[in-house]
């Protein structure tokens, strides 16, 4: 019995060492991004590379504020586009998800399939028509067209996540409210929304991150720096030259990653709850 216990203990510690080693391994690229961003130009192109920066400097971060780099212009555009897309998508998805979860009607399975299949459409193919469509309407290169496009991109998955979430909530709860005389919309906003909070937050995070990340649509549908979001903005301004300024690009990358990483860390608990209930079904 004793040897069994001892063996269990050894395997427990071995697994912990394995876990810590694996997590350190996974963190190496992130460490390298931060370390590169605080190196001087000379040190970035030094061989062999120094694992710990010899003379750490914040020059690359200061350069982000130089107006010619337009970093914070791109950053602001990214915020406008991602926040608007998130609000719009979440509202549309709450309504549709609720409708698809709570009511029975003939077209329902067909509608669900119609929404879900859009996940598989090749986005480059969609882009061709949208590009021509927007340029005809003279709304190419506007935040407006980008916001609607990105809404369509993440809407299907959001509806599906929220529909599954609504499914987990007993109908009796809102029936009581309904019988007490609240309207349909009233019972949705007062009774259901507070309960599905984690699901709504999880969906919101999903949409925000998807929009903040979007490269393909933002790269193609914006043509001037005033409108560009971070992904195309950084690609075009830092990689347009023969030699990439790696410390500058890594500093810009690091700051660009902050919003989604912070949102993630702060809202982690809700996200995992929402994901668990919304997308993990036995």
């Amino acid at each position, binding site marked *: 019995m004793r040897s069994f216990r001892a063996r269990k203990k050894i395997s427990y510690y071995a697994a912990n060492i394995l*876990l810590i080693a694996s997590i350190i391994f996974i963190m190496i690229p992130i460490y390298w991004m931060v370390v590169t961003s605080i190196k001087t130009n000379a040190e970035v192109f030094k061989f062999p590379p120094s694992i710990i920066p010899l003379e750490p400097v914040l020059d690359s971060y200061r350069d982000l504020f130089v107006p010619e780099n337009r970093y914070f212009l791109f950053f602001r555009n990214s915020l406008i586009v991602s926040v608007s897309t998130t609000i719009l998508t979440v509202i549309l998805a709450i309504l549709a998800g609720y409708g698809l979860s709570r009511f029975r009607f003939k077209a329902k399975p067909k*509608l669900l399939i119609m929404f879900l299949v*859009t996940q598989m459409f090749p986005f480059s193919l969609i882009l061709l028509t949208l590009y021509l469509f927007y340029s005809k309407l003279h709304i190419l290169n506007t935040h407006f067209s980008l916001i609607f496009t990105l809404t369509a991109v993440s809407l299907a998955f959001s509806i599906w996540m929220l529909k599954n979430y609504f499914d987990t909530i007993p109908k009796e709860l809102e029936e009581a409210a309904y019988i007490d005389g609240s309207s349909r919309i009233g019972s949705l906003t007062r009774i259901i929304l507070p309960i599905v909070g984690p699901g709504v937050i999880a969906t919101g995070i999903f949409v925000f991150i998807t929009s903040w990340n979007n490269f393909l649509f933002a790269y193609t549908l914006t043509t001037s720096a005033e409108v560009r979001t971070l992904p195309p903005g950084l690609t075009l301004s830092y990689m347009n030259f023969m030699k990439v300024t790696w410390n500058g690009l890594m500093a810009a990358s690091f700051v660009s990653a902050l919003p989604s990483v912070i949102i993630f860390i702060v809202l982690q608990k809700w996200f995992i709850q929402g994901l668990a209930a919304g997308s993990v079904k036995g």
Partner: protein
Amino acid sequence: MKKSNGLYKKNTSFALKIILPAFLVITIFMYYPIFNSITMAFQKIYFGKGEFDWIGLKNFINIFKDPYFFRSFSWTLIFGLISTVLLLIVGMYFALLLNREIPFKNFFRGILLIPWAIPWFVNAFLWLWLLDVQYGLINHILVILKILKEPINWIGGSDTAKIAVIMAYIYRVFPFNTLVYLASFQTIDKQLYEAAEIDGAGKLKQFFYVTLPQIKNIVIFTALLNFIWSFQEFETVWIITKGGPVGATSTLLVRLYDLGFQNRDFGAAAANGLLWVIFLFLFSIIYLRVLFFRGDIDN
């Protein structure tokens, strides 16, 4: 129960009303473009002039003369398959390590999520830098460990470029799999493990005979999602290799983008895309089967 059915049936028109806005957005921005590309595929479009000629099947005939089409078609499928398998292995590895009684569990889980939370284009920039021929960390480490004799040009060779793209992609996506698996472990009845332990099953046996069968559906569903999402991959490839060398890492989206926006031949791009849509349509039948099986789509 009967009463509630009556209550809910009456409100069909209300249901349709609140679904309508989402329906319109998806129709206009997803379905209209797909159907419009059917007509585009039979046209030669003069970019920027708003003019076009009908050219019949020419765009489709050209596809079969185009060596890039088959190259990108097979690479897209191989990329999807390899990355799906690797995501299952890596995701499960971390989920199992985290699914134990350990101190700082939430902290470890939070750290592990960071690669998923960093923007995808940032991840691509980061890997481009890690893979740099002269100053990249990966070459440096591999040379120190004597795995490589001298630094290699990852992006220059077609096999190494493929490995590079897969590494960068897996790195970004695996935390999603870990999260889903971790959540699915919570649904398993603890008594099953107790019973298995009494029967003398070790950890490995417990994993294959208790855990895996219990979460089989979730594993299949997640693999399917991974596979579908791999088709939508653009920036990892575009930023790291631009689809090169000579189209070796050009995936479906990159190929369509090149045809449409680099060659400015929207008709050819639409024809290529439509062949994909047909393929994906067949594939989506499998996808929907799984969803029906899970009970996500019902009445």
